[in-house]
């Protein structure tokens, strides 16, 4: 399956996706006729250079020379994904070159070129900005190339309003990839019917591509029965079809395995191993490993997972090593007589995997390592390993770019370290750890931090920083037990009801805070305030004037109010409030009589 657009890619190793041109050998970035450094004849290198040379409107050699220089930097023997260093170099060179641009048109063309380099380097904001300038070019190729970058950047940045404007613009100018972007977009925003119609139109001349893309949209639409029919039609073409293994893998992975039809999945997956595509063969083995694992056939699962552990592309090898570790861990957990030695072996296996990990898998490896360290009694060793691994990972470019994995890693590190610091009563270190954690990952619910905040040890500086967290669940739980008035006041500034309810119920909340909450004019909050055991006279008076009858009734039922409050409630407009006073034994006979009189 193409990682760029989600459709099926060619079975021939390295062949680009028939839909978007994304090369399967490049696991993260789309390649198309607008990709640099490609060894394909239709790449930017040849087309753009040709395009430049065919024009005499400006200094052709200036641009063409630069493109040649840049394209010459790419190593045809290296996978594109491993050429990020070259992309960086090309960006630097192009920026330098731009300083000597002889005229505007030359500048536009270089910006257009740079937009695709940025895009391939995951720098979507820069790709968009460069694309906007490149779009001013007079030459159709550079305009289309810039628009491709703009569309791809906006799509990846999730700026869909602007994306829609640009896709209309691209459609009007008959951009060849406009409809492909439209299908991708409609699928993402879950307008599946429209995506299917667009797909029918776009791939009308190729029934295989049509069915393949249809099947993929249907999977995303969770219309699995229809998707299965589409895949079955494709698979019926037989193993000699170059896309056969792709379809089999999709059918097994997206439909049969989630439906626990493991035997069917196995039957069809083994027929795909004969594919000439090394990648799809490995995918098939990987799927077979998961099927075997689901069937609790651990030996077979390990055998299949091992197939790709030495794959030259580390993303694939790393994932296989991870699967292998997962299989072994599950096996050990499910075996009653697992020995310490087996856990230690697994610990070493995971440690080895973590050392060689692809960044995407790092958090999963670390999580496995933490679990196995507990079972292998290696909790002390894990601290050293974490330090080493983080020192290494922080030097990678993914550390800055892949927020999701980085946050997962940080969260795991914090969990391990906080447990250790708490056990060793290292409170200063604990405060520092959490201050840095909350500052970096503002939206996470740190359970260890919640536990720590329940103790008297966290300092005020830490509490102040924690106020900045954006995780509402965390704040609501904290508001239940926090005792320091400054912090409670800070929490009361939130608008979310669960946080304010928790504060209203917290016995440590002062009148100032309770009054602030009552001003929200919210029935649930007033109810929560009414339930306080230590409701002050001042707050009773305020709640006795609540806009909600049911709240005033609750107050009228209390036995700790002042005579003044009881009197006010005895003449309340609402009968249910007066009735509550009439039945309240804490009130004097006169007040109860007054309430009864009003009720008459």
């Amino acid at each position, binding site marked *: 399956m193409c990682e760029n657009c989600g459709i099926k890619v060619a079975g021939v190793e390295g062949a680009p996706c028939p839909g978007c041109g994304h090369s399967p050998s490049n696991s993260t970035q789309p390649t198309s006729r607008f990709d640099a450094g490609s060894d394909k004849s239709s790449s930017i290198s040849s087309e753009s250079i040709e395009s430049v040379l065919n024009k005499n409107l400006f200094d052709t050699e200036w641009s063409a020379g630069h493109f040649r220089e840049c394209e010459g930097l790419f190593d045809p023997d290296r996978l594109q994904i491993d050429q990020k260093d070259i992309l960086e170099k090309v960006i630097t060179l192009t920026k330098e070159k731009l300083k000597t641009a002889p005229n505007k048109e030359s500048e536009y063309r270089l910006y257009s070129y740079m937009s695709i380099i940025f895009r391939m380097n995951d720098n979507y904001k820069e790709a968009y900005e460069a694309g906007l300038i490149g779009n001013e070019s007079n030459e159709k190729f550079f305009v289309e190339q810039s628009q491709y970058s703009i569309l791809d950047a906006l799509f990846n940045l999730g700026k869909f309003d602007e994306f829609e404007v640009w896709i209309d613009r691209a459609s009007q100018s008959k951009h060849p990839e406009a409809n492909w972007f439209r299908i991708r977009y409609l699928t993402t925003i879950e307008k599946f019917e429209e995506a299917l119609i667009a797909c029918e139109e776009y791939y009308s001349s190729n029934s295989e591509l049509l069915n393949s893309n249809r099947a993929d949209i249907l999977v995303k639409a969770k219309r699995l029965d229809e998707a299965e029919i589409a895949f079955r039609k494709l698979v019926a073409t037989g193993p000699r079809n170059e896309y056969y293994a792709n379809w089999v893998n999709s059918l097994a992975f997206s439909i049969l395995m989630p439906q626990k039809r493991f035997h069917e999945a196995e039957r069809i997956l*083994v*027929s795909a191993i004969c594919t000439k595509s090394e990648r799809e063969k490995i995918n098939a083995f990987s799927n077979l490993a998961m099927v075997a694992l689901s069937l609790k056939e651990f030996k077979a699962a390990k055998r299949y997972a091992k197939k790709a552990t030495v794959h030259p592309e580390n993303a694939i090898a790393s994932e296989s090593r991870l699967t292998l570790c997962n299989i072994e861990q599950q096996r050990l957990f499910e075996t009653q007589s697992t020995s310490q030695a087996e856990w230690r072996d697994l610990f070493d296996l995971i440690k080895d995997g973590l050392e060689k990990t692809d960044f995407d898998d790092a958090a999963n490896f670390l999580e496995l390592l933490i679990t196995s360290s507990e079972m292998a009694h290696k909790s002390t060793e894990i601290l050293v390993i974490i330090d080493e691994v983080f020192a290494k990972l922080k030097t990678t470019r993914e550390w800055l770019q892949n927020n999701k994995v980085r946050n997962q890693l940080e969260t795991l590190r914090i969990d391990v370290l906080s447990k250790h610091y708490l056990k060793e009563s290292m409170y200063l270190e604990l405060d520092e750890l959490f201050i840095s954690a909350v500052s970096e990952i503002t939206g996470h619910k740190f359970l260890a931090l919640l536990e720590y905040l329940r103790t008297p040890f966290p300092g005020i500086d830490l509490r102040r920083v924690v106020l900045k967290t954006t995780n509402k669940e965390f704040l609501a739980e904290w508001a239940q037990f926090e005792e320091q008035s400054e912090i409670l006041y800070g929490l009361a500034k939130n608008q979310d009801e669960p946080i304010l309810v928790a504060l209203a119920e917290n016995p440590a909340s002062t009148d100032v805070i309770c009054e602030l909450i009552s001003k929200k004019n919210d029935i649930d909050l007033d109810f929560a305030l009414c339930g306080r055991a230590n409701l002050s006279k001042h707050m009773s008076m305020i709640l006795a004037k609540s806009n909600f009858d049911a709240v005033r009734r609750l107050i009228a039922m209390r036995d700790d109010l002042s005579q003044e409050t009881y009197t006010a409630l005895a003449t309340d407009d609402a009968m249910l409030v007066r009735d509550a006073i009439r039945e309240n034994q804490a009130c004097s006979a006169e007040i109860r009589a007054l309430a009864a009189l009003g009720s008459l």
Partner: protein
Amino acid sequence: MTENETKLRELVVSDNASEAIDAAVSLYTAYLSVRGELEEAEYFLLSVLGLQATSHGFIVELSLGEIYLDMKEYPRAKRFLEVALTSSQESVSKRASELLELTEKASSEP
């Protein structure tokens, strides 16, 4: 490695499906099973399984079933042998039946 084995290994990856299947089965029976290299045999056989036409009569499944029986992976052996049992070639289905019986017996042993 004998010249014949080398030749068979080359044929397994050839474009001719029949030759590839025959080579994989021969490689397994004549060399790999003798040396107990069952994992490698499994890999070769899986690599040709998809190329099988009806005329091959599920010979690959039969061989794989036998390998899994030897590996003591009985449920897996059973699944592959049950496919081989449906072969139109009597020799294959008969052997599959015998192996299935052995699998049942072996899997019921404590």
